[in-house]
């Protein structure tokens, strides 16, 4: 009897494995795989030499460097502040906590262009926040600083929402045990709590980073798009190509961006797997 069961279908409480798998594959194909494949097909219209000629142009290279560099920096900032935010929201009770919790997701809901225009107004030399910064000699809007600010804005929910559930589930006994065994509060945090959060932080980091590399709406108004100052981001260069109905070049750059984003997420997954293995061994 036992053998037959193992050979045939596993019996489940709720049936429908084939149906749901079918829906999953169809949805994935329609929404992700087929559009992405068409990006590939479009970009193949360029010959290899055209493809590399396009990608090694100075403005395209600078745009890649700007996008990746600023997104990386923004993702790092998001990790630090995202963890603090998540910590505050899960560990403490204070009036208005629910509302604050709701605010975290606003960057998801707000059209990014609105965010971009608002941020560029606030951080320009005459803006509310930009003015005091300008007195200190920091130019925020229309520089890399502004770019990072915009990317921090769009990326922060990813980190908070990845870390929050882990912190909520984290058993208080671990901390208590660490403390009773003589660990200082900081040691408890770094050795016990942080290592529990690490996979979630990595996920949040990867998501925020990948999102930042592809971001358009929010950065376009605050970046100034100056080739001279290297504040053009890669999605802006794609828009330039689209405006000249140059779909082949646009998709070629998009393809490279896609590969970069994929590699980021892939790397994060690998690190996470390694991490999980180590934890299991312990």
């Amino acid at each position, binding site marked *: 009897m036992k053998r037959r069961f193992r050979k045939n279908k596993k019996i489940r409480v709720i049936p429908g494995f084939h149906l749901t798998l079918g829906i999953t594959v169809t949805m994935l194909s329609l929404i992700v795989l087929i559009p992405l494949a068409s990006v590939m097909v479009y970009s193949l219209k360029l010959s290899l030499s055209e493809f590399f000629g396009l990608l090694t142009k100075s403005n395209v290279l600078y745009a890649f460097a700007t996008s990746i560099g600023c997104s990386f920096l923004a993702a790092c900032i998001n990790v630090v502040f995202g963890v603090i935010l998540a910590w505050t929201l899960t560990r403490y009770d204070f009036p208005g906590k629910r509302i604050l919790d709701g605010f975290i*997701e606003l960057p998801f809901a707000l*059209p990014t262009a609105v965010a971009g225009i608002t941020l560029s107004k606030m951080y320009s030399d005459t803006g509310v926040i930009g003015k005091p910064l300008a007195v200190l000699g920091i130019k925020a809007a*229309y520089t890399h600083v502004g770019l990072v600010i915009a990317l921090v804005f769009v990326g922060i929910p990813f980190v908070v929402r990845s870390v929050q559930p882990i912190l909520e589930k984290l058993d208080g006994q671990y901390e208590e045990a660490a403390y009773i065994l003589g660990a200082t509060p900081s040691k408890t945090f770094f050795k016990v709590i942080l290592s529990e959060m690490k996979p979630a932080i990595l996920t949040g980091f990867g998501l925020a980073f990948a999102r930042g590399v592809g971001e358009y709406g929010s950065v376009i108004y605050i970046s100034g*798009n100056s*080739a001279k100052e290297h504040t053009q981001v890669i999605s*802006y260069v794609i*828009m330039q190509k689209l*405006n*000249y109905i140059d779909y082949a070049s646009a998709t070629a750059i998009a393809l490279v961006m896609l590969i970069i984003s994929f590699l980021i997420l892939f790397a994060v997954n690998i690190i996470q797997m390694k991490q999980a293995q180590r934890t299991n061994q312990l």
Partner: protein
Amino acid sequence: MLGDMQKSRKQQGKKTTYRYHITALLLAVMMLLLSGCGRQKSDVITITNVSYDPTREFYEAYNKMFIQHYEAETGKKVEVIQSHGGSGMQARSVVEGCNADVVTLALAHDISLIEDTGLINEGWMDQFPDQSAPYTSTIVFLVRKGNERNIKDWDDLIQPGVEVITPDPKSSGGACWNFLAALSYAKEKGYSEAEQKKFLKELYANVSVMDSGARGSTTTFVENGKGDVLIAWENEAMTVLKNYPGEYELISPTVSILAQPSVAVVDDNVDFNGTRDVAEAYLSYLYEDDAQRLAAENGYRPSNQEILKEYEDTFDLTMTLWSIDDFGGWDQAYKDYFDDDAWFDEIYNY
């Protein structure tokens, strides 16, 4: 422990509902956006006018005028749906299936792009008078009150330290006019080709913020207080003067370009919608005296020369205006100046 777990599960349940709400909201917004290109069925004839950014105020007034006129003339009720955006982007939306009956875009080249797909018949430029450009404009400077940098003409823009705001010709069709206006000045001065490039290089080196469209540049200059001078369409500059009295000055350079925003009927769509008569009437009425005056009041130069003279206090008629034909038409201009590795890439390469 158990209580804690239940509590957290409850919280998570709440959070999922939040997310549902947000998703539903986003979907609703998307539907609304998409419906901008649709139409409703009723006994009122509906036409869609796909236009570019700065014409918003003009067409709002013109549509009212036209609807009255058309009802008085034929007894039929018309409704006009307006759509505005960057000119190139709007052209692309028509190519990709937006059901526009007429297009009123910033430059003939954008309409030619639609023509290339077969949606608009060849020869649209001769369908209406004055190369199908019922109103024209030109490129001028907008400076802050007092004009501290003492900007009078194009060569003042290349002084070191002057911050210029102008949109990117690589992403905005309208911005190509700005580039060509500067080039017109260099050509008028009799500069050699190397000198022309040097002049343009110095000019674009002074550009501190390059927005993706003309409206974006105006916002940067006016709302965010960035830059000393905005290179702008005359009508856009006049709108700013009107909205912010006493804060800005309009400077007309000695040389500029005759910007001809063109209009056309989208033949394929009107035949499908059965709206050809209305669409053609809509565009020809732009040339009537009333409409021409309305255009003038909104900062556009009427193509009717007599009416233009009535407004000589508003528009500087002494400027030397080059036209796109002096650059061999749009196709040639794009090939020479804006395509990959053409002039603009050469002078703006860091």
